[in-house]
């Protein structure tokens, strides 16, 4: 009995005490962007962030050769407590629309689909030990994979922020 109680308490208190990290990328689920670009975009020429209808985001790094992929605030909020993130293997060749990882809450598991084709540079190892980073900062520190983008033009077909917001408000 007491061992069960000991196992329970630290977990509960940890879960309850965790506050979302203050991050430039943090967007509260209720927040509506009044504009189409993100405030932290320092170099509009090269930094592009796009979204998919299946609730992934992809952000091109400077130079447009590599990109980070994650799940949106909306998706993270809908999933609830994320308990496990499956990261892709390095050098995995991925095709747009195919899984580049998976996110599990207590109640469900979801594939994370790559918005574009490319090759995996690395998964976000922070998530191996702290899956809940996805809840705290889904569009910031909780990115899932960094990839080498096969063709940056593929991003053109994806949703911009305003269009994505429309899909979830609809």
């Amino acid at each position, binding site marked *: 009995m007491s061992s069960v109680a000991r196992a329970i308490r630290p977990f509960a208190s940890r879960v309850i005490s965790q506050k979302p990290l203050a991050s430039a990328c943090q967007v509260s689920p209720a927040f509506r962007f009044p504009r189409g670009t993100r405030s932290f975009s320092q170099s509009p020429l090269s930094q592009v962030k796009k979204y998919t209808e299946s609730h992934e985001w992809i952000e091109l790094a400077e130079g447009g050769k590599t990109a980070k992929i994650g799940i949106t605030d909306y998706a993270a909020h809908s999933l609830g407590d994320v*308990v496990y993130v499956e990261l892709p293997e390095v050098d995995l060749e991925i095709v747009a629309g195919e899984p580049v990882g998976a996110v599990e809450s*207590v109640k469900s598991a979801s594939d994370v689909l790559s918005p574009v084709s490319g090759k995996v540079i690395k998964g976000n190892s922070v998530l191996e030990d702290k899956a809940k980073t996805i809840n705290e900062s889904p569009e910031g520190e909780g990115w899932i994979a960094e990839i080498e983008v096969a063709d940056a033009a593929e991003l053109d077909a994806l949703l911009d922020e305003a269009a994505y917001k429309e899909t979830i408000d609809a």
Partner: protein
Amino acid sequence: MSSVRILTRGVDLAAARAATLNLPRASIGSTVLRRELSSAAIVRPTVRRSLKANALVTDVASRAANQAVRYASSSSEPLSKTQLYDLHLEHGAKMVPFAGFDMPLQYADLSHVESHMWTREKASLFDVSHMVQHQLSGPGAIDLLKKVTPSSVDKLAPNSSTLSCLLEEGTGGIVDDCVITRRGEDSFYFVTNAGRRAEDLAFLSAEIDAYRSKHGADSIKWEILADRALVALQGPLAASVLQPLINTANTPSSETDLSTLYFGNCRELYLTLPDGSATAHPLLISRTGYTGEDGFEISIPTSGAPSLPRQVTELLLTDSSKSRLAGLAARDSLRLEAGMCLYGHDITTAQTPPAAALGWIVGRDRRDPVSATFNGASVILSQLASPKTIPQRRVGLTVEKGPPAREGALVLDISDPANPVEVGVITSGLPSPSLGGANIAMGYVNQGLHKKGTELAVKVRNKVRKATVVGMPWITSKFHRPPQ
């Protein structure tokens, strides 16, 4: 890569086999929503799920409308609402379709994990009004229940209850699981699953018609208590929340003292409303539940008092430091930790009680093949006599650190690692909130591999993960039992 391919082929074969056997199967990404929506009769296609399917409640709703078995014969059919629907919305519930009802998955104040832990440490209130409450009485009531269930209902003391199963004629397959309470000499109250409403009513109608045709129309009276609400108050603080609300006027203290109301027993009691008056009706308070915790299920009549369910619920939620609302998400993880079955997933008509590790529901005095007359008795009694004849058995499994094995995941025997053999399927699984996220699961494995300690494996997204057969429940049940 080549070994992966072989395994992939293995999955497809297994899927086809499972489909022909009508086993419950789901995609890797099955969710509590999806799981609770579907019935055993539906063989789900093996499709991968994306975030889109999980995240969008509207998407879930449209899928549900297509899958729901009972009222929703077409996607345009509206979902039913319980008497507490408005109260759920006021508490910021995330509503999902479940068994033809619009039901709360979780509420705004607590996440799934927080709500789960709240139930284990304090008290949670669940609206389970979607479940089907029945009243069965008359001189033939005992005979009928002894035909459709393997329970010794005639040995039940008044106001005591038992877990049971409705059994299919011939096969002994589980039509539904239920809790039966004896209310009088030949009067019974029982509760069945909402998701099996149509099947249960068809099954019971046929059995009762057949009985009446032999013994007269008045031999059995059967009524669905459609106007009643049902709430479950569960958790270590449940009794301390409920006791002060019990109305003591004109009732002996031996009745109003909940410390003498033990697990599996019930009483009809009034509560005291905030203005000091008693509730319009007595409530049927049963010391039972489906979380492994101490607690009560409270059946609330509404005739002439439509607001009684809300009044009672608000009373029970008065002190938010003790009791909070909890939804289907917490209910599912709590019952799994307690080793309890979810119909349509862990048990279906494809299983008999012995195969489902529920052989104990067969009454001791109902095991003589000569006198046992319940549906499927010959099959079930021979399985109890020779358990080795049961092809697959329900077991608990713990899965190594990593992703949980969920419904539909294959169970493998990897004693020869080069040649993994499919030996079963997971029917429920998740990371256990009470065990710090350890992966637990229940499922069916082949005869001989069901013993505690057997080392097996499960396949999650094409990766093989070690699993061990363990006893259930994973948490210690805390039922309020009489002193020994």
